[in-house]
């Protein structure tokens, strides 16, 4: 009896099979994400608690008669110091969460002991990272939306600009934030315990990117360094879009570097992945933990 073989071997992936694999990973990650609903509590609590330390300190610095606040308004041009701080701290949390979630996605798989077996399947391996990114972006959008709602209702933070412009700035920042996450995730396969690297990156964002202050207050050399960090433009752009009613033209000085950094970080992320993946296979590090 003759058996008809498919014209194309299952072992040779094509675009459609890669797409199916990506869809399967996306579905699996979403299922895992929904299976542990305790993240819902964190989703509501952290957007409030983390900025609160800076907001309450800002309140104390304002003074009972608001004399400090007047100085702050003159220095920053911002009339709403709570909104000003919330945008900075939200960007910091975004970068921080991406580093932990996307950055440690392959490592978690390694710890579960499933990375090596998945690696043997004839799929585009980068789709493992992309698949982790999908649910992460959705949960991050929810996180940012809840932050906006909580501070809008509880603290009366009002937008003086277009939501679409804010979303545009955030969209421009997605490639750079996740590109860094991809590069980091790739490094972690080989380095394994890389918590110190997360502390370093989030520390740099915290010190240099102006999460609670305008970077014009930094010394010259720190300002020059801040210009090499994408969150600096993201924070500046989001504040301009949210509180100064900035349009696309006014936002171009932030959007252009964000897109350029995005391209650079995606390329770095992809090639770091290829390099580290090959290195890990050669050294047998894929299955180690």
């Amino acid at each position, binding site marked *: 009896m003759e058996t008809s073989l498919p014209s194309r071997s299952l072992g040779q992936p094509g675009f459609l099979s890669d797409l199916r694999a990506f869809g399967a990973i996306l579905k699996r990650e979403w299922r895992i994400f929904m299976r542990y609903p*305790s993240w819902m*509590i*964190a989703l509501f*609590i952290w957007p409030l*608690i*983390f900025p*609160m*330390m*800076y907001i*309450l*300190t*800002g*309140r*104390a*610095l*304002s*003074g*009972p*008669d*608001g*004399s*400090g*606040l007047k*100085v*702050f308004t003159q*220095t*920053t041009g911002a009339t709403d110091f709570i909104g000003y*701080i919330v945008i*900075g701290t939200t960007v910091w949390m975004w970068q921080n969460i991406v580093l932990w979630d996307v950055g440690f996605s392959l490592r978690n798989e390694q710890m579960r002991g499933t990375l090596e077996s998945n690696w043997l399947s004839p799929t585009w391996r980068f789709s493992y990272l992309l698949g982790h990114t999908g649910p992460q972006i959705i949960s991050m959008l929810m996180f940012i939306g809840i932050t906006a709602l909580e501070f809008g209702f509880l603290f009366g933070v009002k937008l003086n600009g277009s939501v679409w412009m804010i979303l545009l700035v955030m969209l421009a920042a997605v490639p750079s934030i996740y590109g860094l996450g991809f590069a980091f995730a790739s490094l972690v396969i080989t380095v394994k315990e890389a918590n*110190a690297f997360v*502390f370093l990156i989030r*520390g740099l964002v*915290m*010190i240099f990117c*102006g*999460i*609670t*202050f*305008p970077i014009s*207050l*930094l010394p010259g050399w720190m300002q020059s360094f801040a210009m090499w960090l994408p969150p600096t433009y993201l924070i500046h752009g989001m504040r301009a879009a949210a509180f100064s009613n900035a349009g696309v033209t006014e936002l171009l000085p932030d959007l252009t570097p964000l897109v350029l950094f995005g391209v650079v970080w995606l390329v770095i992320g992809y090639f770091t992945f290829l390099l580290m993946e090959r290195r890990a296979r050669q050294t047998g590090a894929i299955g180690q933990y």
Partner: protein
Amino acid sequence: MIARKDWKVFWRYPLNAVSNIFQPIIWITPIYFMGKAFSTNGQAIGFAQYSGTGDYMSFILLGTVLSNFILTVFWGMGFALKEDMDAGVLESNWLTPVSRLLILVGRTLTSLLTTTITSLFMLAIAGVLFGFRPTGNTLAAFLTAIPMLLGLYGFGFAFAGIVLLMREANTLVDVSSFLVQGLSGANFPVKSLPYWLIPISLMLPLTYGFDAVRGWLLKTNTLLPLQTEVALLIVFMFVMLWFGAWVFYRVERKVRTLGTLGQH
């Protein structure tokens, strides 16, 4: 024995020490620059109206050092229990004829020493970077911190009991740590809190600890006369030690009855 083991483990990972020194500095750097945005000629006038000092960085640095100790004592015992649970040695440790509270205290002794060392380094580095100018009575401030820390052991015992019961208490730890430190004025004078939060803040013994230590060392305005705050801290110390031990032993008996001590 327990303290010596923890000392060895801590120094086996020297990056931890470096991280303990620099992490607090990283966290307060945004406050340093934010304070500049609220200041004229280096003086935070608004802040001075609440606290009695325009030197907000000394105020915050002192709060950060005290917070390091609070974290060590308050959460250290609970975390140590969790580590033992995960390592699977809790049940066997429990079988030894040693007081349970002594095991808990032993787990914090090394941490207290390492926290002192890393906090001094942190203070020295932050002093150079941001300026730290204590002008008051260091000895009185140190003596005031002692009943506060001892009282915290009471909190720590109670919290360790909760960890025994809940087993996975990371979110609880993170959230309550942020709330307790925030509401007791680790980074700002509690008078600046919204009026509805002030009563909660005044109910926390730590509020008086932060306030009194700063009052002695930085000559800031205090909520109550300094002697009254010290007396309150001593009372809280006895109450908290008794209450914490009581909660811990009750929970521990319940956990032993349920047979969940070895689970994690």
